[in-house]
């Protein structure tokens, strides 16, 4: 408990609180603007955060993440265009309520449900992480390798109908981690004698190229500027009729559990949990036929679930050092640069910092609630975002962020190479998440693999002889084979018919 209070004291320092507030604001704003998302803000801020104190840097990054998850419902409700995929299901009833003239009621429900999703899920993560870490600390190199392998296969498995391209992303991600000196034997690989490649590629350079740079270039090339319509209705203040809440308590708890569970699984996260919880709420409702016509149940379900996924995703990130998606992968990269290794030992080695991460998420959720309650009337303004002002400054910040990592223009040229890689991935239809996960986990997977073989005196079967490792590998292989077999069966059935 002393660690929690120490972490709270760190967070309550004015500079850190300002970072929390600024992060939450930026997150809500970018989360609300279609095509932006908090992931973009985290990408841009990642290299800049390396120059800050770790506490302030993580207060900022966590707040952007929480704010981004929170803000995406605004577009869904007011225009029927979600800020990010995590609020897709909210459009069904949220926008229907707006069309009925109940936009303020819908926005108020969205605001409160975000808070009710994030806060308990982060508290659960706070309790669960030490417990999971105490079990995980007993795992060996075999189990860690298998766990990382499972995380990657789960992400590939959800690359719907595109598993081959998902695996190409994995191959590319792994390949990039092999540039520079290898783990264990320190062998120089694929550096072509270049001094600049000897240290490998930094997380920020890769992310800025793949995520941000290519996104801005394609937005310009395709002239994509977000919503063409704008909200012209009237908004009153924050208000939720008591009945809207009391009649949805079961729905809220169920959606929360769905969000938490899905958030925990690699690759799934808020984009899936909002859809699953909406479908579950509709299927278990006594008035299922009303869903889609603009009822509060259809906002509570996706918005509680997508925000509960935040807590769910923090658990594997902190307790196991395994990221669930691109954003948590970047946060993990941020921890590494600050000299903190996420995983079971983090609870033991950096207990105060660990708690600071959870508390930063809680404080950010509180800031989001306050900002959204008092800022409800200004929400439509966010959707009229001036893209011609936003994209240029993001582009400049990306390139400068890459520069300040090494104070060398060569790093910017490297980022340009990754912009080209990102554009190629868009052209080829190669999904981002398997690539990023492999890039983040690749180096440690190789270390675990080589250590495991070495400890087992060359016995490769040891991965299957150890029960936990064996189960993880079976689930991993199953996650790839089951969709393929299902597809083949479906094809055969279709041919027969």
């Amino acid at each position: 408990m002393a660690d929690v209070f120490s972490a709270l004291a760190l967070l309550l320092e004015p500079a850190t609180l300002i970072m929390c507030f600024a992060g939450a604001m930026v997150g809500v704003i970018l989360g609300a603007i279609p095509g932006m998302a908090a992931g973009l803000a985290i990408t841009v801020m990642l290299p800049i955060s390396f120059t800050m104190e770790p506490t302030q840097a993580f207060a900022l990054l966590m707040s952007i993440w929480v704010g981004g998850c929170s803000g995406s419902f605004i577009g869904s409700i007011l225009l029927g265009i979600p800020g990010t995929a995590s609020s897709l299901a909210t459009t069904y009833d949220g926008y229907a309520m707006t069309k009925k003239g109940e936009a303020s009621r819908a926005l108020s429900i969205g605001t409160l449900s975000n808070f009710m999703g994030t806060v308990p899920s982060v508290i659960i993560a706070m309790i669960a992480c030490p417990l999971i870490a105490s079990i995980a600390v007993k795992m060996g190199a075999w189990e860690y390798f298998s766990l990382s392998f499972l995380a990657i296969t789960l992400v590939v498995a959800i690359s719907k109908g595109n598993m081959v391209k998902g695996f190409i992303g994995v191959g590319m991600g792994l390949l990039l981690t092999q540039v520079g000196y290898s783990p264990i034997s320190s062998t120089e690989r694929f550096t072509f004698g270049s001094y600049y490649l000897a240290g490998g590629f930094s997380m920020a350079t890769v992310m800025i190229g793949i995520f941000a740079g290519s996104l801005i270039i394609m937005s310009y090339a395709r002239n994509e500027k977000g919503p063409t319509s704008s909200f012209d209705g009237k908004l009153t203040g924050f208000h939720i009729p008591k009945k809207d809440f009391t009649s949805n308590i079961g729905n809220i708890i169920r959606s929360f559990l769905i969000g938490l569970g899905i958030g925990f699984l690699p690759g799934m996260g808020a984009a899936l949990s909002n859809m699953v919880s909406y479908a579950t709420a509709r299927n278990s409702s006594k008035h299922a036929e009303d869903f889609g016509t603009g009822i509060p149940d259809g906002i509570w379900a996706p918005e509680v679930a997508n925000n509960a996924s935040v807590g769910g995703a923090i658990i594997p990130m902190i307790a196991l050092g395994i990221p669930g998606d691109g954003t948590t992968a970047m946060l993990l990269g941020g921890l590494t640069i600050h000299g903190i290794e996420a995983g079971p030992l983090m609870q033991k080695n950096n207990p105060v910092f660990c708690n600071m991460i959870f508390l930063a998420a809680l404080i950010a959720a509180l800031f989001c609630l306050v900002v959204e309650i008092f800022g409800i009337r200004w929400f439509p303004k966010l959707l009229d975002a001036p893209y011609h002002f936003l994209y240029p400054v993001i582009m400049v910040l990306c390139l400068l962020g890459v520069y300040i990592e090494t104070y060398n223009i060569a790093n910017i040229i490297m980022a340009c190479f990754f912009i080209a890689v990102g554009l190629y991935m868009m052209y080829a239809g190669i999904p981002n998440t398997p690539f990023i996960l492999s890039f983040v986990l690749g180096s440690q997977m190789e270390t675990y693999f080589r250590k495991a073989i070495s400890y087992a005196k060359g016995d490769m079967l040891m991965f299957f002889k150890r029960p936990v490792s064996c189960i993880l590998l079976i689930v991993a292989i199953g996650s790839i084979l089951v969709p393929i077999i299902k597809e083949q069966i479906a094809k055969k059935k279709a041919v027969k018919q």
Partner: protein
Amino acid sequence: MHRDRIVGIITVIIGAAVALMTFQLPDSNMAGDVGPKVFPFISAAIMLLCGAILVVRKPTKDAKPFLVGEQKKRFLAIIGVIIGYIVLMWAAGFVIPTLLMLVVLCLMFGKDEKVPVWQAIVYAVIITGIIYVMFSIVLHLRLPVGNIINLI
């Protein structure tokens, strides 16, 4: 040729190149270590196998064109601006290239909204000023100073 097949061929070429380069890597000098070649070989194998599948597999549907008509020109234009910015930043440092880049990009992105030039200039001056203060003064970071003096 269908885009999937092109991607397949590129992937196979990369996979083959990685495999060839991996053969030339030295073995580990540590006892019991499987060595630094295993993971590059795994990457190469993934690329070769998946690339080959894309080449052989019958494409299921026609891919949407990546860029069409005017989009190609826009694509090349923004790439040109970014390359120009990097070259200018290398030569002349942070302030002037950033001002120019922001004005140009603002006008390019705001062409449909008919953003006036004066607005783009005011925007560029304000943003460059904010970035300069934040990076240089608040965060004590070094911004590019330019090599033009060295060249002269």
